[in-house]
């Protein structure tokens, strides 16, 4: 069903794991990301399920049998309260923003046609998320939480950040990934070291 094609079909960044491009601490950081996917500890079951459905629209992965896990790492961040080091003056603290934002999305969906967000077909889910992104929401539901701000600075930023922290995502965009102690020898345009992704014409 997916027309998605990577220009780097024969590149797997993990093949470099035991090469001089990865040091021990990087191997450990990535191993943990792949193997120690954390359990649910912060979000409620309902919030978790809702977030799974939202994330599946923000970064759909129809081409993968096993999608890159995203929600467990958001839950982990919230559980540990790992903030980015600031909060916008019009936003509540991070944990509260997520709790209120997710609950508002659930209420917004139910309020529109009585179905939960998860029950909506994908195009209606996208339409609802677009409305939230553009602040076209029910103020009664959202109160003083800025819907568009929550969407961009929390929901989308974290979802995208976690997805593109995964080696599968690095491989699909042809990103070199870890590069220490061996960096790169060829730096110019159209130059590629043998340990970099080879691009093929997907057109």
């Amino acid at each position, binding site marked *: 069903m997916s027309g998605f094609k990577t220009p780097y079909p024969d590149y797997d960044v993990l093949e470099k794991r035991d090469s001089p491009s990865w040091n021990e*601490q990087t191997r450990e950081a990535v191993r*943990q990301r792949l193997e120690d996917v954390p359990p649910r500890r912060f979000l409620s079951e309902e919030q978790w399920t809702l977030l799974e459905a939202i994330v599946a629209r923000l970064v759909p992965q129809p081409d993968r049998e096993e999608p890159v896990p995203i929600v467990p790492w958001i839950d982990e961040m919230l559980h540990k309260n790992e903030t980015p*080091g600031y909060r916008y003056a019009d936003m509540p603290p991070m944990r509260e923003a997520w709790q209120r934002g997710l609950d508002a999305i659930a209420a917004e969906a139910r309020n529109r046609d009585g179905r939960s967000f998860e029950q909506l077909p994908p195009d209606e889910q996208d339409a609802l998320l677009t409305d939230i*992104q553009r602040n076209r929401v029910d103020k009664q539901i959202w109160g003083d939480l800025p819907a568009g701000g929550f969407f961009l600075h929390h929901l*989308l930023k974290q979802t995208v*950040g976690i997805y*593109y922290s995964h080696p599968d995502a690095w491989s699909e965009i042809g990103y070199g990934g870890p590069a220490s102690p*061996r960096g790169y020898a060829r730096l110019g*345009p159209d130059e590629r070291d043998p340990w970099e992704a080879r691009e093929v014409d997907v057109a």
Partner: protein
Amino acid sequence: MHGLVRTSATLGKPGKSTLLEVEAPRAIDGRAPDVFRSGAWVPMRTYSDSEEVDFAIVGTGAGGGTLACKLAEAGFSVVAFDAGPFWRPLEDFASDERWQGGLYWTDKRITGGADPVELGSNNSGRGVGGSTVHYTMIALRWRPEWFECKSKLGYGRDWPISFDELEPYYEEAEEALQIAGPIDYPWGRRRKRYPRRSHPVNAPGLVLARGCERIGIKWSPVPLATLSSPRGMAHPCVYRGFCAYGCSTNAKQSVLVTFIPRAINAGAEIRDLAMVGKIEMGKDGRATGVHYHRNGNWHFQKAKNVVVAGYAIETPRLLLNSKCDQFPDGLANENGLVGTHIMIHSGPGVWGTFDEQIRQYKAPPCMAVTEHWNYDDSDKKDFHGAYAFMSQGPLAVGWAQCVAINRGLWGMKLREEMTRYNHVAGLRIVGETEPQHDNRITVEDEKDQYGLPIPRMTFSYSDNDKRLMKHSIGSMKSVLEAAGGKELWVDDDTSHLMGGCRMGDDPSDSVVDKDGQSWSIPNLWVCDGSLFPTAGGVNPSLTIQALACRMGDRIAEMAPRGEL
């Protein structure tokens, strides 16, 4: 075991860190980490809290770390505090954007105003070496006229110090960092050659070069604080591209691997994971030392002088949080200027897609620059001030978040757009913003994990700032287009923090004098980017380090004359 880093034994279990983190102070018991050798230590002199040291320095970044070295080498007793860890780059740092999130200052802060500034990873480091641990190593001097920009260029404020006075200290800082730069840097006063040869320019840098040449303006390889040949135990840059996430090879000449080892060798103590919360004042109106939090408890270090070097948010915050009966509005704040006139560098960027493969993850992110509009005084500009722009090198996560947030892209559109990553190149300015009184740091009632009032930064662009950004976007577009870029788009970003404790000649109009000495408390000093009266159009670190080098010499001159 001291200073244990979470390694395989503790990693990955739920509840454990998923970020770079150091649990306990490492610089204790008469030794400090040897940043050049895995698992090794160097001897370090340590002082007891009751010993009245000559200088307690709060912060070990470009300002505090540099000054700690200068003062220790001049024979003063020095304890330099840092709220963050003493990193061992060779062992601690991974090649991973997410993991390296532990490098940044993530304590509670509020950001507001009409144009709230992103803090954290954007401009705030945490750890010995400060933000130089994650900076992009751009080592540019101020344009000489910027020190007199009111008198000579008709805007902003004059600095209390001239380029002539600072020039030898720029040279000293460049020598200390072994800057790799071109033989002929096209802008500024004629200078002696850079200590090391220039690095080869990467593909994104060559895009800037090609575009500039085609529209007829000058460009240059960026003088960089990363080694182009071996230096002692450090080997040259391997072009791994993770500079903004910490250098795991020590090629980067951060304060952590340059001035800090020198400081320790000269007898300074570096006190890591030690958060200073208050400066104590004596009845005679002089500072008597600092209260700091380490290993779960508050301690008090006696000192003859206190230097605040926590960068443009933490420095004003500490002065404000140190208020007492004698100084009810905070220290050095009789005129109400502490925390005011905070500046950033505006940073709109322009991105384009190219036929050739760029692969912008390779090598330092900013390898080519044009300072054309820093030195253009023609009437073609519809704004006051200056900007430079550099080539860019975002990694996967940074790039994905930039695309998603600035363009509001998500879904399969985002994944498809991301597959063009290797064909993208971009430019971004370091754009001067005006010093405005209401752009400022204040403290809130809300407390952080130490029980200290948290800072709020309020920032709004002026009309002139907006005209400058608009002009720069036009310039960057013309360069990228001339270079062959297609489907150009613009993003919005910022960098750096400056001001908040500006220096000046007039006690009624500044917080400290040209030596960083506060007007009202003679043994209280400031040494960091908060000194800046104006923001200029280049990265601030080299100027901070030049000021710190000069301040070290000034203090060494003043001491024997009894002027401290």
